[in-house]
């Protein structure tokens, strides 16, 4: 054993070395030493070895060192430098979590225990920065945040995940980092495993990039398993083939590739000793198979799961207290996915899942939507009443240019006192109409968008279903400048007698309350759409349409109709939507049974 080079030599009666493991006898701790050099060949430092060595300032380890026991540097209040021979590049792989910061400089690692380290002895001891600076550990986040403004330094730092908290590597990803500033701050005061609490605490402020969420979710769900998976299968020739799959490696490569392709994100997926081995097979297979579905931004299943985490948690925790410890297993996760609308993801149901999933958390509704869509395709119902699509369309470039101008006008207008009026005027040309294609799943949730019952789970479910299944019914929607649907009408055409009836006009509450929207403008756009429709219809079919009425039962634009349209003397026979109601809502037939206003007549067509 090589002796110590420093001022005071520690003899073997203080150390005991067995199988490369150093133990320091409690009675003989080097409490007075300021600097220690650990002999070459030592691989491990035992628990509490240097604990309470209050005068210890610096310590040098040989390249053979691989592991440190718990609390080995606890209460070393003056310890600011731990040097390790740089030939052991894997050192950080085995360092326990309570080493908080490792900096590598000039061929040395500098380790600093955050609890006792100051800013000076962390960074000032390092004169030259390289790309190998590594930070890890539960509390490094604080440290990291402190230096957040120093972009030059930060750009050279890689954050490594640790078993307990900081799980990500990222580089040059400032927007995410800014989010993390808040998140980590809050995390530090809570147990990371209490995920639900964390989410609740963060509330709306918690909007990190979903890819980060994904990694976190994987980790929290316990998707890492201790050993590589061994699978057995029988080949075509009848031989048993044993395969050993390292899912950790597979996942590492897979995720890194996906992330770098998609988001230009630098992620080194570090697997801690405890996690080494790989993903649990079930999850890994599930994830790889459905990666795209899981990963669609804003509307992916993963995000849905993320928002429904509370439910997942409830499903498999027995402790109902506020501070439930989250210990879900992947089996539960997959089960949850399967039991809810995520079940049966395939090409046909994917789009339904995405649309329906936004509004309902119910397998039955999902199944209903699937049924309706299946019927739609089986019965070969035409996509529109008209043979062609009818949609007001301005090409993208032009639309952008117009939009820019309108924004500028709005900016100038805002500087004027009559701000409200100008914005209201502006909105006039911002709306567009569209007759929804009959196979569009949006038909089934329109009521949700426009605050009425015409959706799959509402009294007016017959309206939603008939819009997809009845060849004489089609939904008309108004979109705002962001392409969001803000109003709807359901048009029924009686082809034999040549008339049409809109069940009613429904407007999104938020839209009608907002200053920049105006029910007048929405009404005008609906009217224009119906005029266009009638014009096109009459060019295509006979008998021609003679009149279109609007039901006044539950009409959001009743005031506008009363102002601009005329009450119909004769009630036209409306469509009875209850025929299509899945629930058989007898009480609701539609909005046009008692009072109708005429919005279009045959002679209006000639005025166009």
């Amino acid at each position, binding site marked *: 054993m090589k002796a110590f080079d420093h001022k005071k030599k520690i003899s073997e009666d203080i150390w005991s070395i067995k199988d490369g493991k150093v133990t320091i006898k409690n009675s003989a701790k080097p409490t007075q030493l300021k600097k220690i050099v650990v002999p070459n060949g030592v691989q491990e430092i035992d628990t509490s070895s240097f604990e309470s060595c209050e005068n210890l300032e610096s310590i040098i380890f040989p390249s053979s060192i691989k592991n440190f026991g718990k609390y080995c540097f606890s209460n070393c209040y003056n310890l600011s430098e731990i040097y390790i021979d740089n030939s052991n590049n894997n050192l950080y792989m085995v360092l326990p979590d309570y080493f908080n910061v490792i900096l590598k400089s000039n061929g040395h690692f500098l380790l600093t225990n955050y609890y006792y380290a100051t800013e000076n002895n962390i960074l000032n001891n390092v004169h030259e920065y390289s790309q190998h600076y590594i930070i890890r550990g539960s509390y490094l986040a604080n440290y990291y945040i402190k230096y957040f403004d120093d972009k030059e330094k930060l750009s050279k730092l890689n954050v490594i995940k640790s078993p307990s908290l900081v799980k990500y590597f990222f580089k040059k990803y400032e927007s995410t980092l800014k989010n993390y500033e808040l998140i980590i701050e809050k995390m530090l005061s809570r147990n990371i495993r209490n995920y639900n609490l964390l989410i609740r605490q963060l509330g709306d402020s918690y909007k990190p990039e979903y890819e980060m969420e994904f990694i976190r979710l994987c980790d929290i769900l316990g998707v890492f398993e201790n050993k590589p998976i061994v699978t057995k299968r029988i080949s075509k020739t009848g031989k048993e083939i044993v395969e050993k799959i390292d899912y950790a490696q597979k996942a590492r490569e897979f995720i890194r590739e996906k992330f770098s392709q998609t988001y230009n994100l630098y992620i080194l997926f570090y697997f801690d000793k405890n996690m080494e081995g790989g993903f649990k097979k079930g999850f890994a297979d599930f994830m790889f198979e459905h990666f795209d579905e899981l990963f669609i931004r804003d509307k992916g299943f993963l995000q849905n799961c993320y928002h429904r985490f509370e439910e997942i948690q409830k499903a498999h925790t027995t402790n109902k207290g506020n501070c439930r410890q989250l210990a879900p297993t992947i089996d539960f996760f997959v089960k949850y996915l399967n039991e809810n609308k995520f079940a049966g993801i395939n090409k046909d149901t994917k789009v339904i899942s995405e649309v329906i999933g936004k509004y309902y958390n119910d397998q039955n509704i999902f199944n209903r939507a699937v049924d309706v869509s299946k019927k739609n395709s089986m019965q070969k119902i035409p996509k529109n009443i008209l043979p062609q699509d009818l949609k007001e*369309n301005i090409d993208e470039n*032009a639309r952008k240019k117009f939009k820019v*101008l309108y924004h500028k006008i709005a900016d100038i207008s805002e500087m004027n006192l009559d701000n409200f009026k100008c914005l209201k005027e502006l909105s*006039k040309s911002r709306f567009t109409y569209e007759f929804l294609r009959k196979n569009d799943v949006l038909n089934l949730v329109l009521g949700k968008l426009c605050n009425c019952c015409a959706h799959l789970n509402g009294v007016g479910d017959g309206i939603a279903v008939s819009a997809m299944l009845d060849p004489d019914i089609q939904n008309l929607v108004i979109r705002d400048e962001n392409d969001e649907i803000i109003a709807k009408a359901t048009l029924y055409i009686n082809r034999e007698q040549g008339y049409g009836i809109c069940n009613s006009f429904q407007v999104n509450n938020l839209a009608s309350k907002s200053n920049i929207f105006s029910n007048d403008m929405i009404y005008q756009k609906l009217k224009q759409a119906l005029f266009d429709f009638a014009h096109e219809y009459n060019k295509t079919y006979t008998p021609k349409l003679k009149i279109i009425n609007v039901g006044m039962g539950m009409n959001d634009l009743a005031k506008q109709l009363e102002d601009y349209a005329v009450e119909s003397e004769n009630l036209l026979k409306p469509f009875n939507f209850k025929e299509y109601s899945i629930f058989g809502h007898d009480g609701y037939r539609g909005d046009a049974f008692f009072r109708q206003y005429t919005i279009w007549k045959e002679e209006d067509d000639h005025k166009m």
Partner: protein
Amino acid sequence: MEDKDFIKVYEKIVDEQNDIMEKTSKIKSEVDALQSEYVTCTENRKNEIMQRLEKLNDELETLEKRSIKNSKRAQKLKSIN
């Protein structure tokens, strides 16, 4: 500042603001009309419309500058009184 002077400056700002408003409004009307026309017009006309939009854009930028300047004037007037 004397009342007379104040009214003079104030009216100037209001006139300027009205002028900006009016011109903005005119441009907006034109943009509205162009947008309506754009849906149905020929390709040639579409090109013309796009060129016109460029010019309108420049005009709007000028108006924006004037509006900012006027706003500063109003603020100044407010701070003096």
